[in-house]
């Protein structure tokens, strides 16, 4: 008898010829997520298993696996030689002894003369007898389902828990994306959703010291670390933004302050994206949430870049975004009250329907190329890893 964790992979099954690529990326991510825990990942017959761990680590391993994209569900299981009597006995010992249950047998090993239904019936009978009246069989409204997986190699797996994981695609197989990470509620959620579609996340944060504090920067690093539990370590570029804000404040009309700031943020993000071989920019924008996220504003900020901009939250309500933020544990950190660079110079009446033409004209008062290059040259890069949380 040996403890093992059975891993079921999700959507990857749909991927025809690329399947191997997806699976090998997933395997790599699983191994990385389990770093520091004594265990091994093995695959056999198109299945993935974790073996060689101590019982006390099982919960930790499962909790880490639930955050690896590409896994549909996991089951802690017992691996034992295919001996039907012993299997029945083990089932009656290790599984619950009260409640409604059913037994499902999957017999890949056709050398076994009994049919799946018959084996299930026999195991169920042993369990009923040993439970002394605590269990009842109910094939449809069951409280738990005992699964017995009889493999062709002479071994069987028995389990009754199926723990739903994050689904999605393995991070890395969807390309790289450059996320604009502000420290608010939305951008970490955007990172999570894109990582779920297999995108490896790079991030950029704009820092306006002394208008925003060291604590605000630490908050962003912490958010990146929390999200990295799902998407792996994130390389975060912290770009100094104060000089740019000064230049805009001095040379451009105040109601376009945020519009022009965001256009420059997009330009910097695109440069960094190209450097890191990212195929897209990712933002946490949600249509109409604030003045800079109206359709017109998005059009004006979008027009300075040619890479596609992914906005996974564009159609989400704030409450929906908050629900995900709570689920992935970023909410509590996001709501810490440190100013971000956008609120510092917030004009009383920001323009709600800016035009590209007006923005372009105003920007002629700025040496954009120099501002962008200087900011990028003074960028600090921090690798954010959940292990440092």
């Amino acid at each position, binding site marked *: 008898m040996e403890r093992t964790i059975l891993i079921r992979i999700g959507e990857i099954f749909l991927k025809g010829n690329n399947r191997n690529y997806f699976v090998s990326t997933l395997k790599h991510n699983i191994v990385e997520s389990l770093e520091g825990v004594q265990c091994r990942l093995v695959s056999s017959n198109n299945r993935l298993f974790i073996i060689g761990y101590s019982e006390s680590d099982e919960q930790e391993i499962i909790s880490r696996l639930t955050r690896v994209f590409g896994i549909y569900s996991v089951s802690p299981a017992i691996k034992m030689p295919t001996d039907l009597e012993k299997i029945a006995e083990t089932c009656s010992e290790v599984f619950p002894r009260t409640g409604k249950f059913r037994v499902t047998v999957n017999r890949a090993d056709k050398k076994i003369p009994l049919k799946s239904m018959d084996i299930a019936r026999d195991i169920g009978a042993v369990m009923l007898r040993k439970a002394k009246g605590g269990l009842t069989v109910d094939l449809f409204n069951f409280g738990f389902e005992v699964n017995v997986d009889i493999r062709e190699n002479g071994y069987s797996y028995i389990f009754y828990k199926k723990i739903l994981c994050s689904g999605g695609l393995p991070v890395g197989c969807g390309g790289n994306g450059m996320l604009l990470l502000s420290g608010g509620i939305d951008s970490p959620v955007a990172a999570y959703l894109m990582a779920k579609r297999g995108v490896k996340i790079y991030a950029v944060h704009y820092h306006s*010291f*002394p*208008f925003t*504090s*060291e604590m605000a920067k630490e908050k962003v690093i912490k958010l990146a670390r929390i999200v990295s539990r799902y998407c792996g370590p994130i390389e975060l570029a912290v770009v100094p933004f104060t000089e740019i*804000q*000064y230049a805009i*404040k*001095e040379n451009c009309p105040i109601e376009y302050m945020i519009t022009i700031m965001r256009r420059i943020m997009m330009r910097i993000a695109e440069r960094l994206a190209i450097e890191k071989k990212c195929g897209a920019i990712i933002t946490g924008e949600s249509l109409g949430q604030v003045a800079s996220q109206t359709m017109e504003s998005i059009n004006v900020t979008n027009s300075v870049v040619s890479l596609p901009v992914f906005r996974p939250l564009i159609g989400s309500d704030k409450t929906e975004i908050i629900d995900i933020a709570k689920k992935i544990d970023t909410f509590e950190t996001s709501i*810490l*009250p440190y*100013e971000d660079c956008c609120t510092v*110079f917030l*004009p*009383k009446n920001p323009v709600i329907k800016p035009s590209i033409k007006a923005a372009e004209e105003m920007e002629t008062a700025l040496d954009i190329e120099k501002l962008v290059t200087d900011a990028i040259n003074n960028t600090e890069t921090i690798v954010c890893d959940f292990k440092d949380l």
Partner: protein
Amino acid sequence: MIFLDNASTTPTLPECADIMKEYMTDKFFNPSAPYGPSVDVAKTLDKCRSNVCKLLKGDGKIIFTSSGSESNNLVLFGSKKPNKCRIIISESEHPAVKRPADELKQRGYDVVACPVDSCGRVIPEELQKLLDENTALVSIMHVNNETGGINDIKSLCKMVKTYNKNILFHSDGVQAVGKIDVSLNDSGVDFYSVSGHKFHAPRGVGVLFIKSGLNLKPIIFGGGQEFNIRSSTENVAGIVAFEYALERAIKSQKENYDNASKCNAELRKGFDREDVIIRSDERCSPYIFNVALKYLRGEVILHSLEKYDIFIGTGSACSSKKTDKNTPENMKLPQEYEKGIIRVSLSDKTTISDINTFINSFNLEYNTLIKYMRG
């Protein structure tokens, strides 16, 4: 480095660190154990206790705690009082009194806050009005942590005791001890809280003075240390260092006070400008100087001074993570000033030259930053 946030904490004296090392390594013994070296440690502890009591000029028990906050909590929760009785605090108490008082209110006590003036000092007539036959406890801080406003605890205590001698009087003396005269017998208070790290003792040691004849119910139960009022193995290293720092602070108190007054006068001169409201008036403790800036957030000037290796405070560091909606009526500021609060707090080590360097750097940064702010 010029450290001007001494009301939040002060550097521990190197001598204290040496003392602590000795009591953490060679003399690490648990004072409750029966063998010789432990008995020696227990004796040292008793000596510290009686010396601290002498230095505070009190007649009563000294309970060592982990902090001023713990001392305050111990009084509010542990003092003897009938159910639903009235508890009076001041509007400008530190959260370490305010929050326990809120909790007591939740539990059904009649907690009321006495109005204060613009420097956070209790208005005596208001206190008189709040006293009633159900009042069992009054807690009024000695020196306000934001502005340095000093309450005349002797006359406030007298007023309370004249009304009803059974009302217990507590004062949070965290910003007072080592800075201004503290004479507990003379002031007549029943309980008095002290925190060591405000006068160069290590963080993690506080004291609660309990006047003779009074007692408290514990909030930490266990082995019965500290007269059964505060169980926990004693933090001997911290306590011995605390006693050393307290003695040193009180011995040089007069001289230090004069120095702080000179520095304070320099600050007043430096901030005498029309876009600044000086919140600490001349009657405040010279160690705390609080001003409000027009338009510029306090946090911004705080950060911009970091590059000169100058550190100041904004409001009170204990609450800098929250926006305080409970500012007392008389301490409220015009809207364009309310986010611009900075607190400059001095120690015995602050020099006139530090203050001048600070004022020069402040002016330089302020004049640059203000250009970019909304106006």
